[in-house]
C-alpha cells in the first residue's frame, strides 16, 4: 500500500465515491435528470421562427398574389370550403374577390389572424402595383440571454446543487446511523472530522463533473450564454454546494430513521422549489413574503447564477447573495457539529 492508501481521509472519500458510482439511481438523478429537464424545457419553450400563416383566397389571381409573400401559405378555396376552414382553424384568413375589391374574412380577436390580415393586404396591394412611399429594410435580431431556456438553466443548476448536496449527505449519514455503522466508526480511532470532511470532498469532485456536464449541455445545445467570469461561476457553485451540504448535515445530524430524514428533507426543500425562482421569477411573490423568499439559500444562489451567466455581473456586485450563502454555510454547519448524534 502506498502512503495515500494509508490515509484515512483518502479511504473515506474513496468509499463515498464508490458508493455513489454503485448507486445507479443516484447517477440518474444527479447527472441525467437535470439534462433531461433542461432539454424538455428548452424544447417546450423554444423561440420558434416567425410562423408561416395559412390563408386562402377565392380566385387564382388572388391566391397567387398572396402566395408571393413568404409569410403566407395560400390555398384556393370556394367560399363554402373557406368558411369551413376558417371555422375549424385550418386557415386564419379568407380573401374573397368582390366586384368592387377584396373582402378579408378573419377573427380579429386572434393576433395571428390580425397579422395575416396585414400581411395579406400588403401582398394584395403590392400585386396591384402599390409601391412603398418610404424605403424600408428588415434587420432581424434573435437575442440570446433573454429566452426562457436562458432563464431556467441557472435555476435548474441551483436546484440540482441543492438536491444532490442534501440528498447525498442526508441519506448516507442517516443510513449509516440506522445501521449502527456510525457507532462502529466512532468506536475505531477514525478522526470524526474526517468522516464529515470526506462527504464534502467527494461532493466537491462530483460537483465539478455535475456542473460541467449540465452547463456544457446547456451551452452547446441551447447556446445559453456565460457572460461572467467562469472562475466566479465555479466559486458560486462551490459555495452553493457547500451551503446545501451544511444544511444536509444539519438535517441528518439527529434523525434516526430514513423516514424521518426524508420528511425533514422535503420540508426544507419544498418551499425552495416553489419560492426560490427556479422556473419563474421569485419577484412574482407578494411583497409581504419577499424578505423570507430573499433569505432562502436557493433564491440567493439562483440570483447569483443568473447575474453571472446572463448579465456578466462580477462577484463584487453580488455581495448580498454571497453573504446569504455564506451565512447558510456557517450557521447550519456550526449547529450540526454541536448536535450531531454519532450513535
Amino acid at each position, binding site marked *: *500500500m502506498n502512503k495515500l*492508501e*494509508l*490515509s*484515512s481521509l*483518502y*479511504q*473515506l472519500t474513496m*468509499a463515498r465515491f*464508490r*458508493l455513489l458510482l*454503485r*448507486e445507479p439511481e443516484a447517477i440518474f438523478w444527479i447527472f441525467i435528470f437535470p439534462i433531461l429537464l433542461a432539454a424538455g424545457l428548452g424544447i417546450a419553450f423554444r423561440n420558434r421562427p416567425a410562423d408561416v400563416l395559412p390563408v386562402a383566397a377565392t380566385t387564382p389571381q388572388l391566391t397567387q398574389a398572396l402566395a408571393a409573400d413568404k409569410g403566407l401559405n395560400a390555398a384556393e378555396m370556394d367560399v363554402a370550403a373557406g368558411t369551413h376552414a376558417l371555422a375549424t382553424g385550418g386557415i386564419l384568413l379568407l380573401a374573397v374577390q368582390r366586384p368592387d375589391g377584396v373582402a378579408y374574412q378573419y377573427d380579429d380577436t386572434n393576433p395571428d389572424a390580425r397579422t395575416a390580415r396585414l400581411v395579406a393586404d400588403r401582398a394584395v396591394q403590392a400585386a396591384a402595383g402599390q409601391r412603398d412611399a418610404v424605403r424600408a429594410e428588415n434587420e432581424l435580431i434573435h437575442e440570446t440571454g433573454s429566452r426562457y431556456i436562458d432563464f431556467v438553466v441557472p435555476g435548474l443548476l441551483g436546484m440540482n446543487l441543492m438536491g444532490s448536496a442534501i440528498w447525498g449527505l442526508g441519506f448516507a449519514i442517516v443510513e*449509516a446511523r440506522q*445501521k*449502527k*455503522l456510525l*457507532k*462502529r466508526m*466512532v*468506536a*475505531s*480511532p*477514525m478522526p470524526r472530522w474526517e468522516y464529515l470532511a470526506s462527504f464534502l470532498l467527494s461532493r466537491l469532485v462530483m460537483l465539478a463533473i455535475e456542473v460541467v456536464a449540465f452547463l456544457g449541455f446547456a451551452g452547446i445545445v441551447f447556446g445559453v450564454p456565460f457572460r461572467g467570469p467562469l472562475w466566479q461561476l465555479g466559486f458560486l457553485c462551490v459555495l452553493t454546494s457547500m451551503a446545501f451540504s451544511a444544511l444536509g448535515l444539519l438535517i441528518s445530524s439527529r434523525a434516526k430513521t430514513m423516514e424521518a430524514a426524508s420528511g425533514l428533507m422535503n420540508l426544507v426543500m419544498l418551499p425552495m422549489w416553489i419560492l426560490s425562482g427556479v422556473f419563474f421569477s421569485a419577484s412574482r411573490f407578494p411583497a409581504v413574503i419577499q424578505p423570507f423568499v430573499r433569505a432562502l439559500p436557493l433564491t440567493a444562489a439562483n440570483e447569483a447564477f443568473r447575474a453571472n451567466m446572463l448579465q456578466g455581473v462580477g462577484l463584487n456586485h453580488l455581495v448580498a447573495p454571497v453573504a446569504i450563502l455564506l451565512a447558510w454555510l456557517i450557521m447550519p454547519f456550526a449547529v450540526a457539529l454541536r448536535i450531531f448524534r454519532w*450513535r
Partner: protein
Amino acid sequence: MTDRSGHLEAGSKASSPLLLRGLRKAFGDVQAVDGLDLEVLQGECFGLLGPNGAGKTTTIEVCEGLTAPDEGTVELLGLNWGTDANELRQRIGIQLQETQFTEKLTVEETLRLFRSFYRHGISVDESVRTAQLEEKRKSRVGGLSGGQKQRLAMACALVGDPELLFLDEPTTGLDPQARRHLWDLVDELKQAGRTIILTTHYMEEAERLCDRVAIMDHGRVIALGTPQQLIATVGGEDIVEFAVSSSQVPKGEGPGAPRVQVDVEKLTAISGVQSHRVDAGLHQLSVSELHTTVPLIFAALAAEGLHMSEFRTHSATLEDVFVRLTGRNLRDE
C-alpha cells in the same frame, strides 16, 4: 507478531488489561449496570454470560468508551477514556452487536478503510486470511452470509492488531455451523495470546471459549470463575430431570389433571442428590454418582406410587449454574 508478544509482556507487568470498579449505569428508570467490579487478566478469554437485558452490552460499551458510566472507574491497559481516548482507540479492537457494514463496498475495501484508521496493525491480506474470507475478498458485503458478515466484523476489529479485543455477542443469530466456525476463529486468537472479552447468552459458547466467566443478572455479577469452578458450585456433576404422574391416573395430563405431589424431602434425603427444584412441572435434581443415585430415585418415586412420564440426565452446565443462582433459565427472556 513477534514484536507484539514482547509488547504484551511488558504491558502485563504494568497493569491488567481491564479493571472495572463500582460501575453503575442507568437508562431512565432501568439500572442497566448496578455496581460492577471486574478484573480481566493478561491473555485470557473472559466471558460475560447472562440473559438478554442482564447488562452485558452496557458493560462492554462502557469498557469500549461508547457509553459514559454514571459512577465507577474504568481502566484499560492502564489508561482511561477521559484522558487517553485516542491512544486507547488505537490499541483496542471492537466488534459491536449489530453493525451492518456498507453493503455496496467489498470485503477488501471495507477492511482497507478500517485499516487506514490505525497507525499500526496487520495487513489487509492478513486480516482476510485470519477471518477466512479469501474467497469473498472481492465480493460486496451485501452478498455475504450471516457468518461471513460476522467474520468480517471480526476482521475489522483485528486490523489494528489490538492488545485487547471486545466481542459483543459474536455468534448471536448464526446457524450452528457458522457458530462453530467463529468459535474456531476465536480459538486461534486465544492461541495467539490475545486478551479477549466477549459477551454471550449461550452457555455452551462461554464453556467452550472462555478461561473465566462472569455470570451477570440485573446489572450485577452473580458468579465469577472458570467454567469448571462455576459448574462445581451446582454441587453435582450431573442433572437429572423427570416429570411424574400418579400411577392411578397414568395419562393424567391437561388442565383437569390432579396436581401430583412429590415428597421433596424424601428425594433430597437420597445420598448423592445435592439439590432439587421444579420448573414448569419438571423436577430437576443435581446429582453426583449418577450410576448409584438414579436407582435410588426410581425406588423412592415407586414407593410413593408415582409414575415417571419423562426422564433424562445431562452433565451440569453453566445454564444449571444460572438456574441455581436465579431460579430462571438463561433464555427465559
